[in-house]
């Protein structure tokens, strides 16, 4: 499960907002820090 490397283009992934609606990564403009949590604290 290697994942993308630095320099690679990242796919436009789909997520769910807390209200249950679908959102794409591309809907968040600009550079970003993307933080994957292990769990909600």
């Amino acid at each position, binding site marked *: 499960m290697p994942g993308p490397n*630095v320099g690679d283009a990242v796919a436009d992934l789909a997520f769910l907002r807390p209200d249950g609606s679908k959102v794409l990564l591309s809907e968040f403009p600009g550079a970003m820090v993307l933080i994957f949590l*292990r769990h909600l604290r």
Partner: protein
Amino acid sequence: MQVRERLGEIRSAEAGVLVVTQSRPEAVSAASLPLPVVCDSDRAAYRYFGLDRGRWSMFFRRKVLAHYLRLIFTGWRPRPGVAGEDLLQLGGDFVLSAERRLVYAHRSNDPSDRPAVADLVRRVRELASSPVGEAARKE
């Protein structure tokens, strides 16, 4: 990781923060987090970014035990996992350019393995001052 305390520095470099959780939307809406959060309940994005599942033995490593002890001293309390969460799922931190290229990746090896927030801020600043980052801001 106290990203929220340095959110201003990240935003001053014209970058945003997006938090991804494996929790279901109903759990997130109840938690009322101070950062934008999206849900990846089937963990497809976790897999896409190469984030592994750990082993139960990772919780008994000295540095992981120390990590949880520090959390407990700050008021955190262990709790049963939220329904649907994989307790062995590991996290990670990434910086993406405006063109959606990966410019920094940190995939956690255990629950205590996170980059310093200062490193993330530095990466974002480097990106903002790079020719690519400046061009993106002019658009």
